[in-house]
């Protein structure tokens, strides 16, 4: 039994339908405690003051903003190479989630910047590359919306995702070269010496896991919706033939 079996829409609908309650459960069991823990039960940090609490929404959102694009890239490649409809539709379903995650990272970052750096917005490379990522999400979604024929839209957005990924990475390097930033380095490394104290780290990891499950839940729901919408289109066409 290969993983490609799930490329069959019916098989995917069945499996995802069975999986959904569990994923929803996992989301509730990780996200809620993670956020509550982070919000209510963490101490105030020396460097950040009470604003450290922002980290529990900022960092998970930022992490997934990037990783969802990577997931879309993989899904697009699978569509372009093996032409499995589910993966194209999954990429389409993921885009708005990624867009919202990027937006959350941007907004919380901006709000956080005000007390920490004294400005809402700074052209720091990391912030800048997030803004560009946001634009890529917008363009990708707009292209999907603009094209009527589903397979054409899948092909073109797939190509865009591919080219866009390369240029997103390039922009990142360009931005770093262009302006040395203010932003925090990676503190979440597994290297014990590097990362922040456990009191912050543990709820943060829980939040990230929670966001992850939330993403999976939403992805499944949205992909199912996209599959159904695609099915409606197919049926409507069939109706015309009769």
């Amino acid at each position, binding site marked *: 039994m290969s993983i490609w079996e799930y490329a069959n829409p019916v098989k995917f*609908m069945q499996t995802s339908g069975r999986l959904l309650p569990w994923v929803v459960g996992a989301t509730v069991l990780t996200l809620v405690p993670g956020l509550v823990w982070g919000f209510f039960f963490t101490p105030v940090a020396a460097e950040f003051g009470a604003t450290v609490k922002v980290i529990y929404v900022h960092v998970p959102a930022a992490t997934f903003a990037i990783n969802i694009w990577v997931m879309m890239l993989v899904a697009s490649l699978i569509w372009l190479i093996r032409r499995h409809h589910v993966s194209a539709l999954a990429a389409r379903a993921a885009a708005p989630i990624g867009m919202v995650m990027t937006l959350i990272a941007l907004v919380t970052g901006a709000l956080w910047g005000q007390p920490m750096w004294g400005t809402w917005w700074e052209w720091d490379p990391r912030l800048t590359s997030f803004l560009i990522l946001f634009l890529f999400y917008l363009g990708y979604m707009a292209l999907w919306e603009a094209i009527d024929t589903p397979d054409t839209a899948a092909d073109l957005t797939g190509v865009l995702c591919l080219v866009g990924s390369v240029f997103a990475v390039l922009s990142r390097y360009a931005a770093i070269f262009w302006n040395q930033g203010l932003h925090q380095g990676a503190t979440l490394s597994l290297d014990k010496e590097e990362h922040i104290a456990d009191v912050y780290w543990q709820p943060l990891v829980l939040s990230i896991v929670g966001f992850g499950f939330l993403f999976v839940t939403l992805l499944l729901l949205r992909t199912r919706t996209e599959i159904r919408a695609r099915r409606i289109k*197919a049926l409507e066409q*069939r109706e015309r033939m009769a």
Partner: protein
Amino acid sequence: MTLLTVENLTVSRGGLAVLEGVSFSLASGHALVLRGPNGIGKTTLLRTLAGLQPPLAGRVSMPPEGIAYAAHADGLKATLSVCENLQFWAAIHATDGVETALARMNLRALEHRAAASLSAGQKRRLGLARLLVTGRPVWVLDEPTVSLDAASVALFAEAVRAHLAEGGAALMATHIDLGLTEAAMLDLAPFKARPPEAGGHRGAFDHDFDGAFL
């Protein structure tokens, strides 16, 4: 010699099969006229044969780069003159029949006019003249005589006959009389795609979908 063979072809537009099981073959020196009511899928079939879209199923065999396609739109540049338009397509196909093409389609008098200032029928004549400079054996024409007056239709029939006599072949979709009595006729109505329930072709997405779902 057979120039074009179509076997059991299913063509689709907008992801939906419109014609299925079309088979015919076209030999050098022969012309075939496709007939069928509006919306049956003539344009779709011709575009598929021209290689502009992939067929859903079935096979098309022909010599490589054998087809010259002429569609509803003529591919003319309004700001170029009649002569320049033809020269461009001749250069693209690396042939040099501009003079003969102008003469055969009676465009001599209009040679230096900008395409923008031609009437509907004159434009069409220029579009057909383009076929003559492609140097390709199989003409695939979508309603070639739209807007043409009787004299121009005769001119067109003459051009087709000359092409057939030179060993070419022609496949044409039309609703009106082309004045080509020797052409064979193929009615597309029997090939209308059936819905999947009745055994028709299913899209890739639909394929495993029916029945099992919901």
